[in-house]
């Protein structure tokens, strides 16, 4: 039975949807390409400015026209709006998901209708999708659908994902076999380090240096200690160096996008 709360919720959803479509159509009518681009630049800047201000303003900062934060030791005046804006992003993503579903249905539908090679896989896609959607939506109301959902998710989907993941074990072996070729001094060094690190992971490898004392300077030569040193000192330094470069590269790209300096057709500027 439709309660007042449910009716209000759906009314607001429909009204919001209609208002959104109307606003987009209005913008499409009254703006041309250059004003649309300008509008996108302004909206991008404002969006980025919000997150920048939320990050740089110290906790407890109040802005006169906004309510004070609930926890001034942790949040500033803009912090409560983070979740609201995050929800808006989720709504947009929800609409986009429909596009993805449409694309899947189009491609697989075409396979079935055209009886192309492997069309039975496309049929399996539709059957699985319909069963999953129905059982997922109504499993709360019907025990049989809850059981079906469990079979599909825990009995089928999760083991399938685990199976694909387990293929990695063989792929790592074949890739390592191809890649670990000692053609130079650096390759020999890498092979030696890889050997030490791999052997330190297994009891049989640790047995190789078990005879060394556990204390004293000689303990540093035990294979697990050498492996730990390689991973925490040498490897970590290199990883952090790469991370610095990535971080600054990300900062630069973010700046370019925020200030609309980026080039590319999807930014409205041809490269």
């Amino acid at each position, binding site marked *: 039975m439709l309660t007042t709360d449910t009716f209000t919720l759906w009314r607001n959803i429909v009204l919001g949807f209609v208002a959104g479509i109307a606003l987009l159509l209005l913008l499409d009518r009254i703006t041309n390409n250059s004003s649309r681009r300008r509008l996108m630049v302004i909206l991008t800047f404002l969006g980025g400015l919000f997150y920048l201000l939320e990050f740089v303003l110290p*906790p407890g900062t109040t802005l006169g026209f906004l309510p004070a934060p609930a926890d001034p030791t942790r949040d500033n005046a803009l912090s409560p709006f983070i979740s609201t804006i995050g929800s808006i992003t989720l709504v947009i993503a929800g609409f986009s998901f429909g596009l993805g579903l449409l694309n899947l249905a189009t491609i697989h539908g075409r396979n079935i209708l055209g009886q192309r090679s492997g069309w039975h896989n496309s049929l399996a896609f539709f059957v699985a999708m319909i069963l999953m959607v129905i059982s997922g939506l109504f499993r709360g109301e019907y025990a049989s659908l809850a059981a079906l959902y469990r079979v599909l998710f825990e009995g089928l989907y999760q083991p399938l994902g685990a199976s694909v993941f387990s*293929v990695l074990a063989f792929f790592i072996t074949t*890739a390592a076999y191809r890649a670990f070729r000692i053609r130079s001094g650096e390759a020999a060094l890498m092979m030696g380090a890889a050997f030490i690190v791999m052997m330190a992971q297994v009891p049989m490898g640790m047995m190789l240096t078990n005879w060394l004392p556990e204390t004293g300077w000689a303990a540093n030569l035990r294979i697990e200690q050498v492996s730990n040193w390689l991973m925490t000192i040498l490897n970590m330094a290199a990883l952090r160096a*790469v991370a*610095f470069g990535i971080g600054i*590269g990300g*900062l630069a790209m973010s700046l370019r996008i925020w200030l609309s300096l980026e*080039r590319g057709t999807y930014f409205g500027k041809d*490269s």
Partner: protein
Amino acid sequence: MPKRKAARSRLRKGVRSVKLQIEHASAAVLVLEGLLCVVILGKIFAARGGRAPFIRRIPGLAALDESVGRATEMGRPMLFSLGLGGLDIVTLQALAVLGHVARLAARYATRVIVPVVDAVIFPVTEEVLRDAYTAEGRPELFDSNDVRFLSDQQFAYASGVMGIIGREQVASSFLFGSFFAESLILAEAGHQVGAMQVAGTPSTTQIPFFIAACDYTIIGEEYYAASAYLTREPVFLGSLIGQDWGKIALLAIIILMVGAASVWSLTHGGVMDDFQSRVIAFWQWMPGAPAAGQ
């Protein structure tokens, strides 16, 4: 136990890496980030009016043209994976590379298949591809079915991409974006069909797998240098120079702190706990925030 050994023992036990919990910018972070932004923006605007700076050759990016040419000669399609990220800067950078590859593909009438994992980037990807073909004057070659939303689940996406690679027998495979455990699955699938593979990711944990399985791998900041390398736009080149100056600034800070830590260690018998707490307090200090313990 001698004093120095005791100090070293305390050093090993007491000093550990501590993750700074920063939800808002502290004063030090604000100054540092502000400095980096000023440097990057300054170099961007300076590059607009000046001479194009030199960029060293990046083999992975130089191989993009070669890969497209290989696919064209073999008459087989290419595959371009944007990784598992959503509409973030990593994926946007991958889209920039896709735009370049797509324009080459349009020029040589070679098909490029782009499986996507996030429905939000699906329309963006379609637009990038369509615009690339239109820019090359070959809009009729664009096939919207070549942009496929597979799944937003990691291994379902990986399975789908493996299937596409195997069925289409792609000649070239491009893996650009955020990758996780499925990286080696995709790379090995491409290797099994004999595809030439170029990978680029800022995901440091996946770089070893790509290096082992792909022909060319773009790592670290080379990933974000792709736009500058491929387009030679002054904005991108200036940004790259700004990034390099930023790294020099960070290096100077690291050397300064290493020196300070070394001096402290020598003058305090190797006991670093107080030094570490002072450094953390410095980096986390915010104006107006209560002092520790209040």
